[in-house]
């Protein structure tokens, strides 16, 4: 019985919401870091052949970075909706904490994977640009196709967060 009480003390509503929000920012951020890093390696190769393509490959490298931003955005939405920024945090019940946690799941998971795969597509786009610099837009659009699912996940997360009414 004491164990359960201890658990209840540790896992209060705000804590669970924080874990969700933190994981959303962290996982999407890790994914973006991997993706951007992946493209960066390929981009450095392209630039070593032709430094004038720096601007183009930099654009490609920026693409998988958005998931990290979506993660941060989700984190902010949780903080805002939960009243953590306005000092209203104690009103979050344990159930609502879990709701926030669940709401963070889509961007947490999809953000990570889509950033990684978008990075791979962008890196391939880098070699496309190396051979045919005029086809940059096509490389960008192909890469953006992967991002679609991060956007959908972000929507799912944000709309769920906004449906939780605290207080």
């Amino acid at each position, binding site marked *: 019985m004491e164990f359960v009480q201890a658990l209840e003390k540790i896992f209060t509503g705000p804590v669970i919401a924080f874990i969700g929000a933190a994981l959303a920012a962290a996982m999407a951020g890790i994914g973006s870091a991997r993706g951007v890093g992946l493209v960066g390696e390929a981009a450095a190769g392209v630039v070593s052949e032709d430094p004038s393509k720096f601007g183009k490959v930099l654009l490609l490298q920026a693409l998988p970075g958005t998931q990290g*931003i979506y993660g941060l*955005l989700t984190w*902010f939405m949780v903080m805002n909706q939960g009243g953590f920024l306005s000092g209203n945090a104690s009103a979050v019940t344990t159930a609502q904490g879990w709701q926030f946690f669940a709401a963070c799941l889509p961007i947490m998971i999809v953000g990570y994977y889509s950033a990684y795969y978008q990075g791979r597509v962008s890196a391939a786009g880098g070699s496309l640009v190396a051979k045919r610099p005029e086809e940059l837009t096509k490389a960008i659009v192909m890469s*953006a*196709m992967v*991002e679609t699912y991060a*956007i*959908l996940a972000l929507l799912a997360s*944000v709309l769920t967060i906004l449906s939780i009414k605290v207080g």
Partner: protein
Amino acid sequence: MDKIHIVGLANDKETIMDSLMKLGAVELSEVTDRSDGSMEPEEPQESTELSANVKYASDLMLRMKNAVELSDKYHHEKKPMFSSMRKVSSDNFMTVVSSIDDVEAKADELQNHTSEITVLNTRIMKNILIAEQLKPWTDVEIKLGDSGTEFVDMVPGTFESIDEVELFRDALRSSASESDVIVLHDNDLSFIRAIVIYHRDLAESIIPIIKGSVFRPLSISSRSGYSGDIYDECVAEIENDRNKIRELTSRCREIAENVQEFEIIYDHASVLFDKSTSQSMILDTDYTFILQGWIPSHLTESVEKALRSEFIIAFQSRKAKTEDEYPILLKNHPLVKPYEVVTDMFSPPSVRDIDPNPIMAPFFLLFFSMMLSDAGYGLILAAGCALLIWKLKVTGSMRSMAMFIFQGSLAAIVWGFLFGGFFGDMITALSSGRFSFPTIWFNPIEDPTRLMIWSVLFGVLHLFAGMLTKAYILIITGKWKDAVFDVFSWIIALTGVGLLLGGPALNLPVLADIGKYMVITGFGVIVLFGGRDSGNPVLRILKGIIGLYDITSYVSDALSYTRILALSLATAVIGMVVNKLGSILGFGFTGIILFIVVGLVGHMLNLAISTLGCYVHTSRLQYVEFFSKFYEGGGRAWDPLSVKMKYIKISNN
């Protein structure tokens, strides 16, 4: 587009080509049309001369390009990020072109000097290595390459420590007694100098021992002589080479001042190249030539007049036919024109397509601005684009992009007012909630569902515009059945679905009733006529039912537009995060400083990322959702013979 044939006198050929180039209105194509058989031209005698011209021009271009690049290297002129073309007066241009040999010589000199510098640099590197190796040996009079006496061979070299020497000496002695290691005792070196001596007859057994040991022999294969002398030689050579490099570099800098001349000759060569390559498309006879080309219909008459007034020619034109696969020149309103680059990046329209730009442009503007939807960001972006267009005068596709982003950012200001976005919620943050930016319509953060519905609604309009265009293409090509059964049926059914869903939400059950009948009608047509090319009635109905499955693609297309909501939220919320971070310290003196710094960096970053995102995702909506409804692409843009310059712009005064 008109197809033209011009027959002229061989003597006039050069001048006619020049005038065509100046007019810039004709794209030449290879003369292949000899259907009447009346014209059997001889093999073009000039072909070798022609290819020589092409070769000369391309070679000159390459050399000048190298010279320009090298000049940039020597002559660190600060180049603006968006450089505009250098203006050159036509007189100046002619003088430079007339002294072409001179310029060529300079370019060659620059090239030669540069390669010489590279050679010298490698030699310096080599000499430095040798000198470094020899430096500890300068005080020892030892002859390298050929040392020792008649019976004794000497190998100078180094050990790491004295223990190594002992070990090595033992190893040496055990296999060959007539050998020794002489250690030169000096303490200020981090290694130990030693000389291995042995009887020449023992070389066979000694050399493998030396090779397999820690002893590192001093070996300079390229030179022989006393170590001190070689060292001095190397040092002198290094000094000498360095001086030479200095001389050459300063000479190169001098030459690099002439970068403008190289650029002029490059452009001159590129014009020459265009002219020579296009000549290969012309058929020659002994006294005449014939050329064939494409010309936009509205220019045909004026070009004919211009040519006839100067030359004796036969000029014939006819309207291009669809099977001609003629090149495309789009004619659009100046406001729509910039959007052509968006379509061209997908693929320029083919002969069978209709120009998608006028339909696409308003939607592009709408979606781009909705995604950005911030008055502050819109203002900055508009100012940036205006700077690019009117101050820096960028050209080509850069100008087009700046142009449509300019339009989009102006519209984004409007959306900023509608949604209450001004650098996120900067006004609210600065006034600690006392004031906020006017929200004319609604705030997407407070009511995201509403914006989602509107996004999908606008998206469905976009899809319908694409489908109606498809219907239009089908009707003008006489396939009205396809238009009715495959396109209108879906438009009716999808509108019905929309009413069915929207009616109850708007408390208008009548709409839902109408919607129900529209869905039934639409689906009925699809089931009955979707498989109309199949003769078997059962199969036909089955095919029709399977056709209903397309609903999934329409639904996923429509839902794809929810990205408008997501990106608009992203822009707004990141802006809010920046404001929040900036106001952590309140609004005292340090607080304001922090707000300004964080605001500048954060909002600029957000603006850059959001603009990229808005552009990319708006493009995607056009390419994937919209173009897939009716657009094929695969055409070729009209590329007339004209004076194309890369670096300079010739002004006549």
